[in-house]
């Protein structure tokens, strides 16, 4: 179970980093960022995984409690990633309107 999840996390991270370094299309960069985010979210949720653990409700469980912290972090990170993505997409739309393209080499003015 753990091995499968960690492999998935590493695989997604690898794909996302490869994409961030090689893609020239702004929307694809945004997608790569999201894949990277999903990988780390999976890792966060897995970090809080307890075999046979129960929800941390007072008086509700007999077995080990699961810490609610990773889930809170994951939810917050999802909200933050959603706002970042919204902002990125808004920029891409505006960049397309002002520069007429969403490919980096056509959009870029500055080098060095």
């Amino acid at each position, binding site marked *: 179970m753990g091995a499968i999840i960690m492999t998935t996390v590493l695989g997604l991270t690898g794909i996302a980093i490869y994409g*961030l370094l090689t893609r020239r299309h*702004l929307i694809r*960069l945004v997608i790569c*960022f999201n894949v*990277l*985010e999903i990988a*780390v979210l999976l*890792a*966060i949720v897995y*970090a*809080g995984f307890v075999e046979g653990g129960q929800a941390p409700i007072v008086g509700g469980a007999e077995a080990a409690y699961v*810490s609610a*912290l*990773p889930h*809170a*972090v994951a939810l*917050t*990170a999802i909200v*933050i*990633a959603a*706002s*970042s993505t919204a*902002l*990125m997409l808004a*920029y*891409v739309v*505006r*960049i397309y*309107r*002002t*520069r*007429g393209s969403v490919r980096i080499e056509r*959009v*870029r*003015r*500055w080098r*060095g």
Partner: protein
Amino acid sequence: MAGLGDSLLMQQLPSLLVAVPLSFVPLLYFLEKVGVPARGAALAGMGLCLLLSFLPWVEGTELPISASPGGWGGLLGIELLLDGRARLFLPVISAGVFVSALFGTRWSQRWPLSFYTLVFLLFTGANGLLLTNDLFNAFVFVEIAGIATHALVAFRGDGDGLESAFKYLMAAAVGGILILWGIVLVFTATGTLWIPLAAERLADAPPVFVAGAAVLLASGIALKGGLVPMHAWKADGLAGAPSAVAALLSGPILTALFGFGLRILYGLFGGFPVMEGASAVTGGVEGSFGVLGSAGEVRELLRGMVFVVAVSSIVAGHVMALAQSRMKRMLAYSSIAHMGYIVVGVGAGGEAALAAALTHAITHAFMKVGWFFVCGELRRTRGTDRIAAARGAFREAPWLGGAAILFSMSLVGIPPAAGFGSKWVLVLESANAGAWGGAVAIAAGGALALPYYLRIVVRGFEPGRPRAATPVPWDSSESPSCPEPAAELPEGAPPHDTTGALGVRAVAILVCAALILGGFAGYGLLFSEAFSVATELVGSVL
């Protein structure tokens, strides 16, 4: 002011420092609805925050002040901790935000409500980042500040600003993910994100987790702060931003990030020990190292990496700055170099070198903010921040030239500017601590920096104006090969010359100049305060 030290106000001060700027975010909107102009309300609110940030300096205040909104305590809830480090940096952040808001941009006159709302969000994030004692909250605050900053960078809404904002947002978002990865590792190793408890448990954690978390958190912060090798976005990110926003990014945001970095380094990982012997760049000292004991070698390795990053930031920052033809890009590269100076001081370890790094962080904030204001003034009169276009500008406005000279002297490290003091001590103390490579790089950095500031100053005092003397509105086309669509300038753009605003802009610049001069005059005082903070930080490591 008897009794202020333990009054309710002081007990809740850490919460207030976050809550007051945050409450102004919706408040500005409602105040405008009832007819209070956003600019006035915003400046009043920032004045209030500035006042609050000086409260911990009141005689008889006992530090640290810990506040726990909701009353759950640090383990279950949120803890905000106002320690000496926060006390030192809070006024820097507040003053930086205040003068930047005062300076404003041309577009902030057009859309004051959005501009000041975003500035207050950034302010909240910066203060929170400095005060938080919890990694989870730190992540939230860093992203609050970040999102507000990205929106501000693109505030003009033109192609340059959007391109800058997209690059900056992409870099910062990836930096945020690195920080999140670091947090995951800390949680996996310790089961908590409350910094004091996590630090305690990290002491017994496998070194691989400790090193991994340290590297990830440090890279995340370095990426957001723009250190080599993660600096590529920075010049582009600042070049398209309005000058006041570039000032916010180089002053308050960098200061808050640095403060947070120190909290992580000393609060979580036990800091760098004083170097023994003269092993400069690679470290490699053996022996026992405070909390982490067995992980000593890992830490020396990390220290070596820190020095490599710092020295290459200094060299690359200055060399790239020399090659720029636009002022904002030049200043952005110079910021990279100065972050390198500060990291050398931190990496050298020991109270004195750390205190020098703290004072340099403070003086750098004001000299860079001041330079960006000069840059904004030049852009207002000349329509561009190209160095070539500055010709004759200082001759027309000698006070601006004087300010530019002062800020340049401070950045290069020539008395009587505050930058001289902090740099001098930084070189001496890094050398004292055995970080010879760093000390030499800082000293050489000044020599590299002199020509590129001198170039602007000389150009500014040359007689005559540049050939294309008619100010181009918001030089949206730097490269003629790719003309901007005309629709880029929003309808009803404010008139080019806004004489009413010159007064406050001049005041903002002169405030920075006064702070730089005052920082030199009161350098002993500043350094002794920084030294006590550094002692506290180093002392907090068992």
